[in-house]
């Protein structure tokens, strides 16, 4: 559009956006900085805005040995736990929701709508409103401090089921009819036609659910008691001892960087899928 713009109007968006980017990045930059200094410098607040020289030592220490006082578990183990949890939750949610939505859209059976609502209503029952009873069930099932206990209760997903249902409803009926004429039964149709069509939706969901799984806090906090079952998000919280000078901030910050790197990486690398997944799951 032909528009007379003052210099101010032209640079304003850049000024606002650069300010935004800086504010958003600053806390992480500071964490990154802190992870390059020795304990004393950080502890006394002598840190500057330029990196120190302890980066390798700090990361090596935290990854393979852990902190001195609070949680002695090496962060490497925690990263592994987080990764397993995020992967199992993301893949589990996708698998379970995929077949549920398939049943609801492509079959007619008694109580179909009831089944749909049963899944749908779980949207209104986040972990936070049923904390202790759920904990008790997991404890009764002997699943505390196990990967199963950590992931299984989180694998049900109303949002993913709704999303697949929505997507399946856009699959032309003629495709089903053509498959039937070609002699495909429900299994072959699912495997040969529906699954390949759903790849993008699955990928977008994977990005969102991986982040969801990685960032879980309340649930692992309840379910894990042993240090070697901790996820990194729990581990880092335990490194901060509020009323105490014992916190090894340079190590905590190194852990923070390690904790946020994988999900941020996923978002930045798969930005398109991430946006698609985010926008569609909220519809």
């Amino acid at each position, binding site marked *: 559009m032909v*528009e007379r713009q003052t210099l101010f109007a032209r640079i304003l*968006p*850049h000024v*606002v*956006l650069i300010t*935004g*980017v800086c504010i*958003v*990045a600053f*806390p992480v930059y*500071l*964490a990154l900085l802190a992870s390059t200094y020795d304990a004393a410098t950080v*502890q006394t607040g002598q840190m500057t805005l330029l990196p120190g020289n302890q980066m390798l030592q700090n990361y090596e220490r935290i990854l393979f040995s852990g902190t001195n006082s609070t949680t002695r578990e090496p962060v490497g183990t925690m990263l592994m736990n987080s990764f397993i949890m995020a992967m199992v939750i993301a893949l589990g949610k996708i698998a*379970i*929701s995929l*077949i549920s939505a398939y*049943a609801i859209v492509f*079959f007619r*059976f008694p109580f179909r709508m009831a*089944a749909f609502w*049963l899944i749908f209503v*779980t949207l*209104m*029952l*986040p972990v*936070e*409103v*049923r*904390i*202790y*009873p759920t904990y*008790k069930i997991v404890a009764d099932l002997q699943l505390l401090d196990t990967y199963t206990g950590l992931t*299984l*209760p989180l694998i*049900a997903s109303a949002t993913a089921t709704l999303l697949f249902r929505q997507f399946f*409803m856009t699959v032309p*009926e003629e495709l*089903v009819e053509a498959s039937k004429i070609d002699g495909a039964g429900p299994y072959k149709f699912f495997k040969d036609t529906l699954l390949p069509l759903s790849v993008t939706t699955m990928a977008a969901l994977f990005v969102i659910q991986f*982040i969801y799984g*990685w*960032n879980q*806090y*309340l649930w692992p906090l309840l379910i894990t008691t042993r240090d070697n079952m901790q996820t990194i*998000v*729990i581990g*880092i*919280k335990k490194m*901060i001892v509020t*009323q105490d000078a014992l916190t090894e*901030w340079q190590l905590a910050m190194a852990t*923070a960087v390690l904790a*946020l790197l994988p999900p*941020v990486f*996923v978002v*930045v690398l798969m*930005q398109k899928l*991430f*946006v698609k997944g*985010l*926008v569609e799951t909220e519809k």
Partner: protein
Amino acid sequence: MERRALFGGKLLPYTLLLPQFAIVVVFFYFPAGQAVWQSMLMEDAFGISTEFVGFENYQILAADPDYYKTMLTTAVFSILVAFLSLSCGLLLAVMADKQIKGATIYKTMLIWPYAVAPAVAGVLWLFMFQPSLGMLAKMLRSWGVDWNPLLNGNHAMILVVLAATWKQISYNFLFFLAGLAAIPKSVIEAAAIDGARPMRRFWTIIFPLLSPTAFFLLVINIVYVFFDTFGIIDSVTGGGPAGNTTTMVYKVYQDGKAGSNLGGSAAQSVVLMIIVIALTAIQFKFVERKVQY
């Protein structure tokens, strides 16, 4: 809506639904039912026997000034975070929506905080504002502010609000961007021909057309503050000082952890359930309206 092309099979659909059902029943409905049941039970002082007390736990809750304080805290927290993150998200989205150089890079650089875990976000902000060694805390002190979120409830609230807002801006930014992209370009052009300068164009055309998006985001943000900020509060303040940052969800957790008042904790859970149901209902009613728009 009604499909003609279907598959037969009597047992197959149930088999397909079974895994999801098993999880949903065992880990969702059963515990939720337990919460409702427990909210009507009371243990005696020694924890030896429990008896059915009907709505007594709710009555106790309704008479508890602490609970009102928690509600107020939650309300203040929600309003501040929603207002701040919505306005920042909108401002950034409007700027990034202009046809400027590097718009894609700006977008990438603004969306990643979504991926940071709330607890990690809390730790990052705590580090900046930690009274004895935090870089920004030191700055505040040098300006004469007696900054101490570990002792001052208002400071603690400011800190959790900042951390929660920081994490939520990217989400609102993305949805506002999508909302802006959905406004037909020709409507903006018509307004330009109609002589509306950019600022006027924003307030008379773009902003009203974004209001459905804003309302949707408001609901989502409130849900976010209610439930997803648990990690931030636990890592930054642990609900303190003196319960000044204890939200309703955090109180359920604390009361239950103490273990003495399972009935009261369960009653609080049920109140939360009702709130989620209300918010979800509002959201879906709105989605229906949006379809017509």
